[in-house]
């Protein structure tokens, strides 16, 4: 009779211990799975952000190169190098980054360079990207486009003074992707007969930087030709070059 009671207690303790073991194992596995899922999502999104930022830098750098005299082919070459570079850099699986560069007018080989005589100058680059991240049990397909455009708008007026002397005022606006941007370097030229000249201190040349991408330039010079033609050459803070020519209106 005594023996039977003991076996009941052992059974009870045994059942409890086994149940606790099962429970704790189950909870541990559940928690671990949850953490792995969260970690994976973070690694995905962080890596995607890194790739998008890198792709943008490649487009900016390529446009800077092309706008300063490089060939359009540089854009494609840089993107191919970037795709190849990131292809083997994903720690948790496989990364495939494909791109297409825009060929629709006004773009040619992904590049749009239009430095007009109507007061508008544009340097732009456009590429579409397709990103595939292949992981164990999770795939990500993402499409994004990078459009980098530096726009320069200029307009000028002039007032005839004594003889051929003229007071010239030029206002220019610099935009990055349609938003006001600051210039790294800004040069103004005016045309006298067949020569393009830069105004200097002898011309009372002044530049006012309004700090919002708007610049006002003023000078006085002997200019035989009429109306006055001006040209503004700008390097923005991303090293993208743009220029625009305009014919000033007499006031």
């Amino acid at each position: 009779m005594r023996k039977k009671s003991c076996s009941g207690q052992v059974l009870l303790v045994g059942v409890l211990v086994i149940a606790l073991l099962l429970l704790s194992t189950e909870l541990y596995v559940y928690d671990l799975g949850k953490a792995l899922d969260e970690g994976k999502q973070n690694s995905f999104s962080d890596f995607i952000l890194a790739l998008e930022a890198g792709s943008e830098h490649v487009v900016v750098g390529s446009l800077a190169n092309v706008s300063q005299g490089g060939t359009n082919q540089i854009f494609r070459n840089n993107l191919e190098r970037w795709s190849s570079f990131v292809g083997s850099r994903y720690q948790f699986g496989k990364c495939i980054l494909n791109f297409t560069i825009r060929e629709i007018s006004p773009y040619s080989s992904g590049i749009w360079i239009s430095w007009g005589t109507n007061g508008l100058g544009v340097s732009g680059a456009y590429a579409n990207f397709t990103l595939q991240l292949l992981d164990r049990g999770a795939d990500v397909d993402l499409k994004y486009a990078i459009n980098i455009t530096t726009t320069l708008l200029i307009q000028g007026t002039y007032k005839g003074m004594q003889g051929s002397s003229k007071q010239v005022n030029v206002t220019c606006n610099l935009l990055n992707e349609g938003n006001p941007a600051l210039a790294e370097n800004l040069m103004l030229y005016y045309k006298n007969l067949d020569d393009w000249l830069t105004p200097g201190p002898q011309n009372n040349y002044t530049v006012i930087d309004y700090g919002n991408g708007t610049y006002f330039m003023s000078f006085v010079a002997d200019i035989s030709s009429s109306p006055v033609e001006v040209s503004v050459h700008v390097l923005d803070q991303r090293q993208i070059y743009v220029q625009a020519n305009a014919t000033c209106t007499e006031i």
Partner: protein
Amino acid sequence: MFNKKGQIRMLEAFLAVLVIFSTSIISITFSPSRNFNDEKLLSTSGMQALIELDSDGTLGRLVDERNWTALSESLKILLPVGVSYNLTVYDDAMYQINNSTVGNGLRGQKVVSIEYPCASQSTECYFYLVRLQLAFTE
């Protein structure tokens, strides 16, 4: 009589298991979610710091300029207090290009390593792999 006693004990045992199980489930469900591990926190902090630094091209520019002091100072500001780090930069051929230590002396039991692909905005378009090792200082 003996059979009935056994059945009651079994019932008792199952009830006890049920009580323990339900208590555990309730406590887990309503307890505040804890940081599962430090690794996740460290890697997230490191990645966020690098993303922030790279958002305007600063990361690539500082590497282009080999300005390791400025890079180290920037990371010190962006990373949380109490995190030690060590940064290594490789070029696209995987050659290490930082000849001096970039970091504040990596120390800690658990070290996390993250890799960040970076492109510079320069006209030459250089590519780098930035490897950041992080640990909580003890």
